[in-house]
Structures are given as C-alpha cells and as structure tokens.
C-alpha cells in the first residue's frame, strides 16, 4: 500500500513538472519563474543530500552554486560559445573547489562546520567582486548568451525560447535528481543515513566517517554547481550575489520549509520561496523583512516543513 502511494506521489510530481510552463501562466506566473523553481529546487535538493540525509550542517552552498554560474558564464564569454561545454566547465569548477575545501573541513561538526562553510564561501564572493576585468565585479558578467543546442540529429532553440530552455533544464534536473535518488538507495546512501543517526556507532562499525562526509559534501556541491550553471544560463547574466552567504541561507530555508527529511521537500520549499519572493518583491520595498519574518515563523512553527507535517498527518 505504502509503495503504491509513493509511486503515485512520484508520478504526480513528474506530471506537474512536465506541464508546469503551461499552467504557470494561469496562476499568475511566467515560464522563467517555473525554470527558477526547478533550478533553485535542484540546489536545495542538492544541499539536502548533505543536510537532511547526511546530517551535516552546511551553510555555504551558494559558493559552489555561484562558481558553477561563473564557470558557465565565463566559458561562453571567453572560451567557446557552447551551452553543454559551459555546463561541464561550471560543474567541474564548483566540484573541484568543493573537493579541496571539503578536505579542510570534514573534521569539524555542527555549528563549527556551518561557520567554516559560510566563511569559506566568502572567498569566492570577494574574488568575483574584486576581479573586475574578468568577472565584471559588482555589476555582474554580461555580454554573453546561452547558445542553441545542436545534437547533430536535432536542434533545440534553447537560446531564445523560454519553454525550450525550461525543458532542457528539466532534463538535467531529472538526471541529477535520479542520480541522487539512486545514490541514497545504494549502500553508500544507507551509510550516510547511519552517520546521520549515530556517528559514533557508525565509526565503531568501521565506517570511515570522514571520507563518507567528504564524498557526500562533494556530491552535494556537484549538483549545487549544476544548478548554478543553469541559473546563470537562465538569465544570461550572473553577479557576485550568486555566491553571497545570504543565498546559502535561502537554500537552507527552502530545505527546511519543504521538509528536510523527505526527498521532495526542498523542491516544494523552493517553489514556495521563489513564488513568495517574486510576489513580495514586486509589491513592497520591504521584501527583506517579509522573507526574514518567514524564516522566523518557519523555525518557530513549522520546523518539520510542509511535507513533514503532511506525512505526520497521514501517519496519525
């Protein structure tokens, strides 16, 4: 019975995602907003791989997201105008940085891990902020465009058509999410859950905890930087705010808002957050207060997130 309902839920989610550009307009949105939901949703789900399923508190994922964004943008602008190559380079840059920084921090835990991850994120922020001639500094990197996709047998106009780009992003989203799901079901994923539940016991069982946390960190950052590449391709623009620690905080709140302990929770959280932010920032100048207040309210009243509450209701 439970398996069947999980399968229906999955099917419903994919149907909603596949048709999103067509009903987003009906509820007052637009295609770009739909793309933003899946891109930021991917980033939040990537973070949750670490946060919810490994139990490691990372607060600096914007750094890898932003490195992906800049990697992709700079590839198209300076090296070769090819969208797939831009994505490959962006992901490689973000993952490499994560592998190096991850090695420095795997021994830290809890709040200290959070503090160090936030602080390290700022390095890349200042590099992009200061290195004007290459990164465009505070004004951001403009003067480049995502390119149409040419697979030889078929051409896709993702460069100009918003819907085409949505489906392009959705394909990558599906691949990334599928890989995360497979990883979480594998023995490796089960080991991560064991570390989350009881690190000491996992260590007694002979599990190399540090190595697993490092791997989980790198995998999580890999998908976060993939989301970053899509984010800059979406708007044909990127600026240092894509690396700023406030964005890291937004990723965490997305994961918590939707439900950290459920696989799809962060996507739901991202959808709520993106739509709320879009709505509030077009209606009031004080959108920061509204977003900040929503942080406080979520923590005080919905710490389990929306899906956490729903699951509880069903179980009761």
């Amino acid at each position, binding site marked *: 019975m439970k398996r069947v309902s999980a399968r229906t839920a999955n099917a419903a989610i994919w149907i909603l995602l596949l048709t999103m550009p067509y009903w987003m307009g009906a509820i007052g949105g637009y295609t770009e907003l739909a793309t933003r939901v899946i891109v930021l949703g991917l980033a939040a789900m990537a973070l949750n791989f670490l946060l919810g399923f490994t139990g490691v508190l990372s607060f600096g994922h914007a750094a890898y997201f932003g490195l992906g964004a800049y990697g992709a943008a700079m590839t198209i602008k300076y090296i070769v105008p090819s969208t797939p190559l831009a994505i490959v380079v962006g992901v490689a840059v973000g993952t490499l940085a994560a592998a190096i920084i991850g090695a420095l921090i795997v021994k830290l835990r809890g709040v200290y891990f*959070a*503090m160090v991850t936030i*602080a390290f994120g700022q*390095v890349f922020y200042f*590099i992009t902020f200061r290195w004007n001639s290459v990164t465009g500094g505070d004004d951001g990197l403009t003067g480049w465009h995502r390119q149409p996709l040419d697979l030889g047998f078929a051409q896709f106009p993702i460069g100009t058509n918003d819907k085409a780009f949505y489906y392009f992003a959705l394909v990558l989203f599906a691949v990334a999410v599928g890989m995360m799901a497979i990883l979480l079901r594998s023995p490796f994923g089960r080991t991560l859950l064991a570390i989350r539940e009881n690190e000491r016991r996992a260590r007694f069982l002979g599990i190399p905890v540090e190595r697993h946390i490092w791997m989980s960190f790198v995998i999580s950052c890999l998908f976060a930087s993939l989301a970053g590449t899509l984010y800059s391709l979406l708007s044909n623009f990127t600026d240092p705010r894509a690396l700023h620690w406030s964005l890291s905080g937004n990723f965490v*709140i997305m994961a918590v808002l939707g439900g950290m302990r459920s696989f799809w929770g962060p996507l739901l959280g991202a959808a709520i957050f993106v739509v709320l932010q879009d709505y509030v920032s077009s209606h009031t100048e004080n959108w920061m207060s509204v977003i900040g207040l929503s942080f406080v309210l979520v923590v005080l009243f919905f*710490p389990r997130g929306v899906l956490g509450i729903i699951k509880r209701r069903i179980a009761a």
Partner: protein
Amino acid sequence: MTQVLLFNVFNGLIVGAFYALMALGLSLILNLSGVINFAHGGFLAIGAYLAYSLMPFIGFWGALLVAPFLTAAIGLAVERVLIRRLYGRDPLYSLLLTFGLAYILEDATRYIYGAQSVPYPIPGWLTTPLSAQFFFLTGYRLFMVALVGIAVTALFLILNRTRLGMRIRAGTLDLETVSVLGVNVRILRNLNFGLGIYLAGLAGVLAAGMLGLQPTIGTSLIMPSFVAIIIGGLGSLPGTLLGGLLIGVASGITTVFFPSATEAVMYIMMGIVLLVRPRGLLGEEGRTQ
C-alpha cells in the same frame, strides 16, 4: 613607504579591534548557548543608529554611554522571546532564526533611517591629527583603540573576577552541572546574551564614528568576526581577540602590497589554520567535534 605601511598596519589594528569586539560577543554566546548569532551585525547597526538618534539630546559622550546598554536591553528581550525557545534543539534552527532576524533588522534600519549613508558627528578636537608626520593618528582613532582596550579588559575582569563571569565560564564547560548546583541557567544564558550584545552595540557606536552610518554596517563586519573566532580557536576568548587583531593587521598589510586581496587574505589565513591546526591558534582540543 614605511609611512604607508605604518598607516595601514595601524588602520588594520583598528579594524581588527572592531572584528575582535564583534567576535568576542559572538563567541560568548556561541560558547555558552551553542547559538551562532547571525543577527549580531544587526544589533551592531542598532547600537550605531540608536547613538545617532540620541546624540542631539544627550551629546556624543551620553550616546556613547547609553546606546550600548539600550542595545543590550533589546538583546535581552530578543533572547527572552525568540532565542530561548531553541536551546537544546538542532543548532540549524537557531542559525536560521537569527539569519531571518538579521534580514529584519537590516531592513528595519533602512526603512527608518534610509538607505543612504549618514555622517556621524564626533567632537572636533578628536578629529585633528596629533602629529604632522603621522597624519593618520587622529585623536578619535587613538581614543577608539583605548576604548576597545578598556572594554576588553573589563570583559575579562567580569569573566574572571565576578560570580556571573565564573558561572559563565563554568557553564561553557558543563552547563548541566552548573544547573544542578543551583544556578538558574535561563537567567545565566539571558545575561550572557545581553553581555554579548552590549559588545556589539559598543562596536556599533565606535564604528559609526569612523565609517559613517549605513544599514549594511553590521553585515559587512559579521563574516570577518566568524573568521576571527575560527582562527583564534573555538571556545577560547583570548584566541578570538588574537584572531580579530591578526586578521585586521593582515588585511592592512595586504592593502599596501596587493589591494585586491584585502578581503580574501583573512580567508586564506583561515584555510591555513584549519589545515595546520584545526582547533585554532589557542583553541582547546576536542571542541570542534
């Protein structure tokens, strides 16, 4: 060249003193309650703007005296109403709550005082350079260094010589035992939070005089404070002080030789410290777990 270097070292020392003042408050709260107070920068801004609002009525010295205490009072109330509920829960939640609070505080100051930077008037005799050769040695800068020195000394005296300080130090090591011995831990944590916020308020008033007032004044100082804590060593207040001064001076020196790396240098230092000595310069072993 020597003069430029000297100027930047001195400047770095002042900036480092700010970082240290901020970081000491953060460290106090983190050590006793396990809460990373992201809103610390917001409280710093409150201190600065309160002083700005009070100054027409009670003058520069009055504002300097009163504003940090008012900030601390707001801090006590915030701890009482919001943060207290989150002790003992996953640190993730207090992080998120104070993060949201930081957004609200920054937006509120922008709403009330406007996004533009406003100058913060300081007494004329403090702004004149003390010597023609060392033009950067204004009275205000020396005064700031002296005041930070006094504040830090007072803090360590409170921690080492008073009953409250003894309890805070004991609670940092083992809060449960302190509670069993009959100390009211709720009040202890509340006062400790207030003490930390007082330091933020004081840093705010001083920073206002040097940098002028703008709503983002606090957010730009919070990351270096994190770095100061990590470099100095988790759980060690002298370490935090050392860390703050160290990164301040290091950025000052870097400004001379490689200006575009002014901000990045402290993060590189943090990376080196984590690589060579993960517990920080003066940190105790085992506190990073």
